[in-house]
């Protein structure tokens, strides 16, 4: 019996090989100074989805598969242990098959604040009955690929009045994997 339970762990994920490619499009950074050049104590800086300062990534993968995106972001940007600024990260995705980040952004879907994980198809499916399961990748066959855009943005602050001046940083980790059902 134990053997059968273990066998069920061979899930949808097994159809996928390591063919998800995550590519940062701009500088690979979310720089709040790009939104507001001068950040002083007491400031709150919000980068919205429509702002140029948004960090953009592409997810390339098998078009007929779902992916689960997990954003692992700190709740503060730090200068050191005692000097920190609150950070609230949000993200949005666009899986309409857009070929540029500009058109992708226009149709992007914002994930509600507070959520850190979301699952969606690499390429949005048309309405109607669900399609049959995708053909697994195999020798001589590679499924169609698609590109989803991911937008990372958020709010910094309020910058505490007594923090030291300096460059505050933090790392946002983005994990993407094919969803397993």
């Amino acid at each position, binding site marked *: 019996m134990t053997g059968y339970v273990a066998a069920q*762990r061979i899930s949808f994920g097994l159809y996928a090989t390591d063919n998800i490619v995550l590519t940062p499009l701009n500088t690979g950074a979310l720089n709040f100074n790009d939104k507001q050049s001068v950040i002083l104590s007491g400031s709150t800086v919000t980068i919205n989805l429509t702002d140029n300062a948004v960090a953009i990534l592409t997810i390339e993968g098998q078009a007929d598969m779902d992916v689960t995106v997990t954003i692992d972001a700190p709740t503060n940007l730090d200068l050191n242990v005692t000097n920190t600024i609150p950070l609230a990260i949000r993200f949005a995705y666009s899986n309409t098959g857009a070929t540029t980040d500009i058109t992708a952004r226009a149709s992007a879907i914002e994930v509600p604040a507070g959520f850190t994980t979301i699952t969606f198809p690499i390429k949005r499916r048309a309405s109607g009955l669900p399609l049959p399961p995708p053909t697994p990748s195999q020798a001589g066959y590679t499924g169609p690929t698609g590109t989803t855009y991911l937008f990372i943005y958020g709010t910094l602050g309020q910058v505490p009045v007594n923090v030291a001046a300096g460059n505050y940083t933090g790392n946002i980790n983005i994990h993407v994997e094919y969803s397993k059902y």
Partner: protein
Amino acid sequence: MKILKPIHGLFIFLLVQTSMMLSAQSKTSVTIKAQAEVIDQSGIELVTIKNMEIDLSMARDGKIYVSALQDTQAAMMMVKGRANARFRIKFAPIVEITNSAGNGTLLLKYEMVGYSSDNQGAGEPIDATERILQMSSDSKYYFWVGGRIDISNARPGNYDGEFTIEIEYI
């Protein structure tokens, strides 16, 4: 039966291992850096490079005019701050200058031009109403200050005054 059980157990073990390895391969991660540079309000500095020089030889019909855009006698100032930062300036357009011997005052009406590099002739006029300007990529902005003064009724002596400019990041 006693022989089959160990073989079955080994098979399960390998299956689980394979599943975990492939799952790991299908996961992709990337890290982006979030950053913000916080500065002190005092991180903006106004440096006087040259004072305005006025002497009587410049008078025409009892009036002196120093062009902020063209005259070498114009005062020159530089703002040092953060690269590409936007800032707001205000200044009093008319200032009273005082005879150092106590023999009255004169009114000096300022004119100012500004540019993001040291190029007086390219300066754009800046009036006294609140203006929003932008530092250059090397964190500087330059001002040249001239003015008009009527000395037709002035008493002899030295006159001193100050030009006050208010600068604030936005």
